[in-house]
């Protein structure tokens, strides 16, 4: 364990921390442009966070300690996951062996779970609605997520994201195998679910059909800033897994030099912009569905994962 590796690992976390709002800003800006609006500029999330950190905190009288703990735990979870996944380098860094893909998934879910609790904790009507909706979606999303992980495991014979990355970079037949392609499609739907961009989510927030926003409606000031930041980081992490592990496994630092790491960070932004284009396209092209059709995309994702597992049954 050399000092450079430790520095790189810290660099991974800092990259996620620093770039997450930027990606959020790019997506929002892009979306606004597609919908023929001016858009707030790609740095707006940073300004939002800055502003929120300078505001005072208002806490509902009904809130318990869960209300206070949630933002901190959620934020910490999102700081932990980047250690486990290939953000900048294609080789494991110190502490990367703490957990595999499933472990990373668990930590991500822990953050969401606490936010759901917090939404219920304030006993406001919107928080309850948001939490229950989130759980309804999550109940269907989790089995699919597990199936996707099973698919990845069968594909690479390992659950470590680094192994998958290496396999896909080195083996074209594996990259173009139906197992992998269907896995990509299944994970793409999960990506939409996890980043609240399913066709049932509302693109304009703060209204009746909100899910994510409803849960944190009671938060204000620095606590809200932490939650928003955590949510942006979660999006960043899911994008990272999608790009660096599944779709675009190239462009990571091989040797761990400073130039390589910087290049990898720049590459990440380019990849994310590509994925964001697709996401925005899907979101704009797909008409909004009633909330009670939320199971359809998830059923499709489940099916794709099953197909991928079937496809991986021949070598």
């Amino acid at each position, binding site marked *: 364990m050399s000092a450079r590796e430790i520095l790189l690992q810290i660099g991974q976390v800092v990259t996620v921390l620093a770039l997450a709002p930027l990606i959020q800003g790019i997506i929002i800006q892009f979306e606004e442009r597609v919908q023929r609006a001016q858009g707030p500029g790609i740095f707006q999330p940073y300004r939002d966070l800055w502003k929120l950190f300078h505001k005072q905190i208002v806490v509902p009288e009904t809130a318990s300690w869960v209300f206070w703990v949630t933002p901190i735990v959620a934020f910490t979870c999102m700081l932990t996951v980047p250690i486990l996944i290939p953000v900048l380098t294609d080789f494991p860094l110190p502490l990367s062996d703490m957990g595999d893909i499933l472990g990373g998934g668990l930590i991500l879910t822990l953050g969401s779970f606490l936010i759901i609790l917090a939404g219920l904790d304030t006993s406001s009507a919107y928080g309850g609605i948001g939490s229950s909706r989130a759980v309804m979606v999550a109940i269907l999303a989790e089995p699919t997520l597990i199936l996707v992980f099973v698919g990845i495991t069968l594909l690479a014979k390992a659950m470590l994201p680094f192994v998958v990355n290496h396999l896909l970079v080195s083996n074209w037949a594996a990259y173009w195998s139906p197992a992998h392609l269907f896995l990509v499609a299944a994970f793409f739907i999960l990506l939409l679910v996890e980043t609240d961009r399913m066709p049932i989510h509302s693109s304009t927030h703060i209204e009746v059909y909100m899910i994510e926003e409803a849960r944190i409606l009671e938060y204000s000031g620095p606590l809200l800033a932490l939650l928003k930041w955590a949510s942006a980081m979660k999006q960043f992490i899911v994008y990272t897994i999608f790009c660096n592990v599944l779709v675009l496994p190239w462009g990571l630092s091989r040797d761990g030099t400073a130039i390589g790491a910087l290049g990898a960070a720049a590459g990440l932004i380019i990849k994310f912009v590509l994925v964001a284009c697709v996401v925005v396209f899907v979101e704009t092209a797909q008409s909004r569905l009633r909330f009670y059709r939320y199971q359809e995309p998830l059923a499709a994702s489940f*099916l794709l994962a099953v*197909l991928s597992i079937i*496809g991986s049954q*021949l070598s």
Partner: protein
Amino acid sequence: MLVQHLSPLASSLFSLLAIVSLFLSFVMLGSRWLKNYLYAFAAESWTIAALSAAVGYYGSYPELYLIAILTVLFRGVLLPYLIWRIIRRLEVDREIHEILQPSSGLVIGALFVMFALAVSYRVAAEFHLELTVAVLALTVMLSMKLIGFLMLAVRHEAISQVLGLLVLENGIFLGSQILVPGMPLLIELVILFDLLIIVACFGVLVGYLLTHVGTTSTLDLKRLVG
């Protein structure tokens, strides 16, 4: 046996095409609009034609090119066109009363695929072909069969049922391309023509249904019981 000595690339290509056709039959299962249903069917036929050509190329069966061309002509162009004409005449766009929600249909279809996989494994193990594309071909063949029956069961618009029937046939055709590429040409040709006659018959019959019964939904066909 073709499947026993295939290059990895050919094997990958076959499995990709087979899985894509399976996926397209799921698209058919999940779509509400008859038009989408029809497009998915046409795309599936083209995929199967590509598969025929690929098998012909890698297994050096030149007659399969002919089959591929005829598949495109009949299943990919002519049948969809005929059905499209029927749809246009009927002025029916979509299934109005769903017996089963598309998403539930997809999940049941996925379970069918798992069942088909289990059966195929068992059968392929008999010939020590577990790790070849034969498993996949059998799986796709059986699961398209099951999905076709599911469509027949849960769809009640006459056109949907016809398309369900065609999915049944497509599944068999696809599987036979990979498993028995050396099958006598005559049989495959006659089956292709036969399909055309079936669709023509269905076209006439749908017209009759509309004129004499006044509906094309099989939910309303319940005069004869007991």
